[in-house]
């Protein structure tokens, strides 16, 4: 029964926030903080008490650490089927942690309609938790689409329009919504295709993950269905030709929105690939792997180059996400256990570092009222602590040893070198550009001639706790990633077996 509560808690908390608004603006914040802490707490409790050697693997009934199932829509064999394994747990921990942070970072920033803001924030996180737990394809799609609406409101109502007024926040929100909704519908078509193919061969109408894993698919159909899933995940990840919603949405969103987008929402796509696209369609995925890895490479370089060219600090961080997600994509499709584990660490580390960078740029915005780096410069002497901490996270983002990002990227590269050396070599050179844009961001914002000598407010305790906590976690992930690796090991080995077998078959067929 604990799994439905993980989803329900944010939804109920959100409603309470809305109702609590009439008793003052502070109450919703505390309710939201409590809700998210509860979510994080339950996550940690599950981590301490669960057996994470259980995970779905080929050739057997999928095993889950915790499972919950009740029939929902009988007509289509749809059930409320939730399951937790190591990968979902890590993602839920990340959701809980970033949930707490996004409440904290909007403590001062959001002053209008506080209750409704937190309602939306909580509902996004509830939907995301649902995505991480759903084991019924219909349910998965349900949550996948459901988290869009509150995110849309978050950007459209509390966002910032760009400085030149050309791109409004509503434009960004609508673009985000249409991209994800349209690609989601393509996934729905693919889901229905899979279900009906399974129905035609076995006569059982079901949307259940464990049953559909065993579906026999003709090669051509499998490839098409895989593409349907891939497009939806590629838009969300984002993979380069489908990325154009991301910089707009990130830049225009309020800080909490950016934190959730970069930290969690992008991860739902990587999670979807690992949980659904690869295990359901291993052969097609193996065949598609070179294309996916090429797309990942393009993403790494394209993201890095465009990040370098940005003047808006949030757009810069947004493009850096495109670059980092390119590594994740390569890791996922390389088919080696090491690289898959690396992708998980990279997801966690990117979640933490991108969230921290967005929180820091939010704090800068609160002080300077601009995100334009041309109007910054020389801030090193004007704000206490903030520039130094930014430097730390910029270094983390470029993959400095000692931070989680290094572990992630290193594992991805070393793992994929065996199977695809050329891709790895080219990807490695992408790291250089990572350093370029990270350092240029620090240089433009904090060094050079100052625009004025006025000293700005330093960081208060709340701001300090948030970023130092993240820094601590990032270092922990960098020097002692073993507990995280152990947790996701079983899931990743399952995925690796699916993909590895398919790779072997593909090689022998050629």
């Amino acid at each position: 029964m604990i799994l439905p509560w993980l989803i329900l808690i944010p939804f109920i908390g959100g409603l309470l926030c809305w109702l609590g608004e009439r008793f003052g603006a502070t109450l919703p914040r505390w309710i939201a903080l409590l809700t998210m802490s509860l979510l994080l707490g339950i996550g940690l409790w599950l981590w301490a008490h669960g057996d994470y050697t259980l995970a779905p693997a080929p050739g057997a009934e999928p095993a889950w650490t915790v499972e919950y199932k009740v029939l929902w829509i009988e007509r289509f064999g749809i059930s409320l089927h939730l399951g937790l394994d190591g990968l979902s747990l890590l993602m839920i921990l990340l959701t809980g942690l970033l949930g707490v942070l996004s409440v904290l970072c909007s403590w001062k920033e959001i002053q209008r309609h506080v209750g409704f803001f937190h309602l939306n924030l909580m509902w996004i996180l509830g939907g995301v938790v649902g995505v991480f737990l759903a084991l019924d394809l219909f349910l998965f799609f349900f949550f996948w689409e459901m988290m869009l609406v509150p995110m849309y409101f978050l950007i459209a109502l509390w966002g910032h329009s760009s400085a030149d007024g050309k791109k409004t926040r509503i434009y960004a929100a609508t673009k985000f919504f249409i991209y994800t909704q349209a690609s989601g519908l393509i996934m729905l078509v693919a889901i229905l295709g899979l279900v009906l193919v399974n129905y035609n061969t076995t006569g059982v109408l079901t949307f259940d993950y464990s049953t559909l894993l065993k579906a026999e698919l003709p090669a051509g159909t499998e490839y098409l269905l895989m593409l349907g899933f891939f497009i939806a995940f590629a838009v969300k990840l984002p993979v380069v030709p489908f990325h154009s919603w991301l910089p707009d949405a990130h830049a225009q969103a309020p800080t909490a929105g950016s934190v959730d987008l970069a930290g969690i929402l992008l991860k739902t796509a990587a999670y979807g690939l690992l949980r659904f696209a690869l295990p359901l369609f291993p052969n097609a995925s193996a065949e598609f792997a070179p294309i996916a890895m090429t797309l990942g490479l393009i993403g790494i370089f394209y993201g890095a180059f465009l990040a370098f060219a940005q003047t808006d600090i949030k757009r810069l961080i947004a493009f850096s996400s495109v670059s980092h997600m390119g590594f994740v994509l390569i890791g996922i499709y390389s088919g080696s256990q090491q690289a898959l584990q690396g992708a998980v660490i990279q997801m966690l580390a990117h979640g933490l570092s991108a969230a921290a960078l967005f929180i820091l740029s939010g704090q800068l915005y609160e002080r300077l009222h601009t995100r334009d780096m041309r109007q910054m410069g020389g801030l090193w002497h004007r704000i206490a602590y903030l520039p130094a901490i930014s430097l730390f996270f910029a270094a983390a983002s470029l993959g400095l040893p000692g931070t989680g990002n290094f572990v992630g990227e290193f594992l991805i590269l070393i793992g994929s070198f065996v199977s695809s050396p050329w891709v790895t070599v080219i990807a490695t050179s992408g790291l250089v550009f990572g350093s370029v844009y990270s350092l240029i961001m620090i240089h433009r914002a904090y060094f050079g001639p100052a625009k004025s000598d006025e000293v700005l407010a330093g960081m208060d305790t709340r701001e300090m706790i948030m970023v130092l906590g993240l820094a601590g976690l990032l270092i922990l992930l960098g020097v002692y990633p073993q507990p995280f690796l152990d947790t996701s090991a079983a899931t990743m080995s399952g995925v690796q077996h699916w993909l590895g077998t398919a790779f072997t078959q593909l090689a022998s067929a050629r």
Partner: protein
Amino acid sequence: MDLTIQHFIALAPLLITSITTVVVMLAIAWRRNHSQTFLLSTVGLNLALLSIIPTLKVTPLAVTPLLTIDNFACLYMALILVATLACVTLAHAYLGEGKSGKGYPGNREELYLLILMAALGGLVLVCAQHLAGLFIGLELLSVPVYGLVAYAFFNKRSLEGGIKYMVLSAAGSAFLLFGMALLYADAGSLTFSGIGKALAATGMPSLLAQLGLGMMLVGLAFKLSLVPFHLWTPDVYEGAPAPVAAFLATASKVAVFAVVVRLFLISPAASSGVLTTVLSVIAVASILIGNLLALTQSNLKRLLGYSSIAHFGYLLIALVASKGLAMEAIGVYLVTYVITSLGAFGVITLMSSPYNGRDADALYEYRGLFWRRPYLTAVLTVMMLSLAGIPLTAGFIGKFYIIATGVESQLWWLVGALVLGSAIGVFYYLRVMVTLYLIEPNLRRHDAPLNWEQRTGGVMLLAIAILAFVLGVYPQPLLDMVQHAGFQLIG
């Protein structure tokens, strides 16, 4: 043929509605009283709705060669009666209380009379199994609607809408009649099943039959406002008083679509060959043109008009598939669409109530509504999400069914059009939705009366919104109901 008590039970919903019409007419002649007329109409409609329960016990039953009462008919009768009931309730709020001087200045009572007659036409239509029955039902449905659309005749737009609808509708009926005549000349029968047999016997339908079916299609497509016969829709939706627009969008369209389904599925030859291609083209055109034209609208009623064109385009996908899940998909989609449209038009009606010269249908009048009327806005938000087919709302279940049908029958072009259309559609639904939440301007021309929740209309609207939400979360009861509503081929 002998009429037994069974036949009367089967006909009960129609009979009760007819009696209500007569009673309401006499009551108006005796004493004009708005509330009394309203009360009589709602009691009659409720009784008709309840009488469907005994009717279900005797179905399927052919009553005269013209009508057949089966589960399919019962489902759609119920849907029409519920929609009519909702429209009547909305009309009561819209026309105003009366004596106080606020509200509609002319005679209020005849509106109910006209709506009841139109509903009766709808009931006849969903039971029709004979071209004559179809035509009687269609005209009984359309003619009162002319009057309804132009009910606020001192308003130029309303009058214009009424005349436009009358002229074009008459032209549509002419096409329909001509088509029927040609079909009769070829098949030698006017019953749906007779036509089906005759067409199946010849193998490939003759040119005459195809021409006849094509012309009938023109007439029916006009009523359903499918592209390219959609030109009247935005003007009539805009001109018609809000509750009438609600009736037009729900009860009227459901009835026509139900009879089209019966006609095309019972006469199988009708759904083969060239006609399927024509239907597919119409579906794609309706989806794309409806959605594209809705993009630029700044009037909520016109926007809903264009969106209804697109929605009936989606429905045609199921009609083209016409196998497997199609019947269920049509039923589920129509139910969810009726709920959603009633909700959306209901909000417009309450925003414009009591009547004061024109309806509150410009989008700017809804700016920042959330911060003034949170419940009313919540209703409209749910409706917009439902129209866009976002999970947690009834509209999603409908769209899910249509996509499932399309994928099942492998109609990839149509499914592609649906995906594209939905992506375009999201844009304008979101535009309406975000308008509701934007910061309040100083302008406050129209507003729902402060105590709108207490009024029957408000309560009903909240119930509709909750229903849309519940069906989106737990659709199983609806699916069970629709699954039992297939039709049997008899006589």
